[in-house]
C-alpha cells in the first residue's frame, strides 16, 4: 500500500479544519496507513502549525521557504514534487487553493486525479472507489480511481466528519533543504477584501434567499416585498449575482457571505453545496421550489413544491394581514 500524505493549508499559524477531515478520509482508504502531514510556509506561522499538528499526526513534513509564505500553487507543486515518494496518495482540500494545485500536481506525478470527493467507499485491489457529485449536486457518481501510480485526491471541505484521533505526539521532519530554488511565472500581488454592501446579510435574523428560480431581474421585488413583510432582508445564490440582479454582497455561499439567520427561506434555490456552505447556525429552513427533486429539499426543515413567482406574493399578502390583525 502506498503512503498517504495530507497537504494542509493554514492561516495565522492555525491549520485549516480540513486537517482533521483528512485523518478521517485516510482511515477510509487504509486504516493501517496513518497519513503524513505536509505543511509549507515560512517563519513563526509554520512552526506554530507544525506544533499543533503534532497532536494528531504521527509525522509532519515541513517545508520552510520565504517564497512559500503566501501559498502559490506553482511553487508548492515544485516543492511537493521534490519530496513526494513515487506512487504517493496525496489528499488535499477542494478549496480555491486545491483547484489551483491538484490538477497540475497529478500530471507531474503521473498520478490519478479525483476531485471534489464527498465520500470514500474503500479499496478494491488497486482501485479506490469514491463518490463525487455532478450537475450541481443533482446526481452523485461512483468513481473508480486506479492507484497504481499514486493519486491526488481533493476532498470537499466539510464532507468528511472528523473522527476522534488518538493523541499522536508526532515528529516534525524538516524537508526544507530538499526543494532547491523556487521561482514562479505567476506572482501573488495582494488580496482585495470584499466591499460591504448596503445591507449586511450576515447580521440578519430572517433571510429571503433567491436563486435561479427568480428568473428575471424584475422579479427580485417579489422577494423584497416578502422580506419587508417579515422584517428581514433579501439574499441570493450565485446565479443571481452572475446575472447582476443583486450585488455580490448579497450572495450566500463559500465564495460569498457566511450567514447565520434564525429563519431562512430558500426560494427557487436548488441547494448547491457551495451555497449551503455559507449557511451556519442551523437556521429553520423553508425551501420553496418547483422541482420536487431539488437537493434543497433534502436539507430544509419544511418544503413547498411551488412556483415562487406565484407563491411568494400570496405569502406576502397573508403575512401583511397577519401583522395588521395584531
Amino acid at each position, binding site marked *: 500500500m502506498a503512503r498517504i500524505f495530507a497537504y494542509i493549508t493554514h492561516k495565522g499559524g492555525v491549520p485549516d479544519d480540513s486537517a482533521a477531515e483528512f485523518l478521517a478520509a485516510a482511515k477510509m482508504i487504509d486504516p493501517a496507513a496513518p497519513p503524513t502531514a505536509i505543511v509549507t510556509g515560512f517563519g513563526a506561522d509554520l512552526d506554530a502549525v507544525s506544533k499543533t499538528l503534532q497532536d494528531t499526526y504521527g509525522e509532519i513534513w515541513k517545508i520552510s521557504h520565504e517564497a512559500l509564505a503566501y501559498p502559490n500553487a*506553482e511553487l508548492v507543486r515544485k516543492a511537493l514534487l521534490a519530496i513526494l515518494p513515487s506512487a504517493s496518495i496525496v489528499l488535499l482540500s477542494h478549496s480555491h487553493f486545491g483547484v489551483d494545485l491538484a490538477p497540475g500536481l497529478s500530471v507531474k506525478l503521473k498520478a490519478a486525479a479525483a476531485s471534489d470527493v464527498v465520500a470514500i467507499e474503500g479499496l478494491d485491489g488497486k482501485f479506490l472507489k469514491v463518490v463525487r457529485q455532478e450537475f450541481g449536486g443533482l446526481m452523485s457518481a461512483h468513481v473508480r480511481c486506479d492507484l497504481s501510480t499514486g493519486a491526488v485526491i481533493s476532498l470537499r471541505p466539510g464532507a468528511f466528519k472528523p473522527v476522534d484521533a488518538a493523541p499522536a505526539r508526532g515528529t516534525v521532519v524538516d524537508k526544507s533543504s530538499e526543494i532547491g530554488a523556487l521561482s514562479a511565472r*505567476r506572482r501573488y500581488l495582494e488580496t482585495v477584501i470584499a466591499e460591504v454592501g448596503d445591507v449586511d446579510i450576515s447580521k440578519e435574523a430572517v433571510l429571503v434567499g433567491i436563486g435561479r428560480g427568480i428568473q428575471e431581474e424584475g422579479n427580485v421585488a417579489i422577494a423584497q416585498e416578502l422580506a419587508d413583510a417579515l422584517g428581514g432582508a433579501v439574499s441570493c445564490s450565485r446565479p443571481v449575482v452572475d446575472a447582476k440582479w443583486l450585488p455580490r454582497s448579497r450572495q450566500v455561499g463559500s465564495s460569498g457571505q457566511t450567514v447565520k439567520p434564525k429563519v431562512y427561506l430558500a426560494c427557487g434555490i436548488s441547494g448547491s453545496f457551495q451555497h449551503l456552505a455559507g449557511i451556519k447556525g442551523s437556521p429553520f429552513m423553508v425551501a420553496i421550489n418547483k422541482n420536487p427533486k431539488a437537493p434543497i429539499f433534502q436539507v430544509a426543515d419544511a418544503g413547498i413544491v411551488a412556483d415562487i413567482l406565484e407563491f411568494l406574493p400570496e405569502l406576502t399578502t397573508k403575512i401583511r394581514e397577519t401583522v395588521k390583525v395584531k
Partner: protein
Amino acid sequence: MEILVCVKRVPDTSENEIELNRAGNDIERDDLVYSVNEWDNYAVEEALQIVEKYGGDVTVVTVGGEDDEEILRRQMAMGAKKSVLLSDAAFEGSDGAGIATLLSAFVRKNHYDLILTGVQAEDGAAQVGGMLAAMLDYPFASLVTSIEVLNGKLKVSREIEGGNKEMNEIDLPCVLSIQTGINEPRYVGMRGIRQVASLEIPALDASVLAVDPASVGKSAAKVQRMDYFVPALGKGAEILGGSREEVIDKVIELVKAKGGLK
C-alpha cells in the same frame, strides 16, 4: 492576441430535469437538451472582449463527435473566428487527463498566447485547465474573475473565500480557468446561428494530432465513472401539503414559532 477557448457540450440543467435512467448506470439521455457548458460560455465572451480591444482571433476547440459541432457553431455565431473538433473513436472514455493530453497535442501544433477553459463543467471535475497547463508547462490560474492585459503578462483576479479577491500577475502564454459572472455573455440569435450553419469545421484525429491512441481514451483513463445515483443528503424536509391557503398558514405558523415573525 491569439486565444484558444476549450469548450464542452453538456446537458443543460436549466432545460432538463436530470434523472437516473432505468438501468441506473447513467442519467436519462433520451430527449435531453444540450448546450455549451455555462462556464465555457463566459470564457468565450471574455476572449472575444480581449481580442476586440487588443486584436487577434478567438478559436474554440472541443473533444467529441459530430453532435458536438452545434456548440462550436454557436460559439462562432457569438464571434469566435475558428473552431476545431478533436474527434476519434480512440478518444472516447477519456478522463480529465486524457482530454488535457488531446488539447495539449493540439496546442503544440499551433500557437496561442492565452488559453481559457471554464472553471468546471456541469458533468466535470474542474481539472482540465490545470492539467493542460502542467502538460504544456505554462503557468495557470483557476477561478479567474477579471483579466487585465499588460505587456507580455496579465493581471488577473481569482475568487477566494468570503467574496474576497486574490490579485496575481501571470506571464504569457498561460492557461486560465474562468469563473461565471466575469462578464455578461452576449446574446446569440437565430440569425447568427444560420450564418455559420454551413461552415466546415475541421475534425482532427489521433494521427493528425500525433497522439498515441493508447495514451488517451477509456483504456488509459485512471479515473472512471462507474454509475450515477441520486444522493441522499439529509433526513429531508417535511413537504407541506394541502390547499395553497393551508400551506401558507402552515408556513406562517412555523416561521412565527422559529422567531422569524413577531
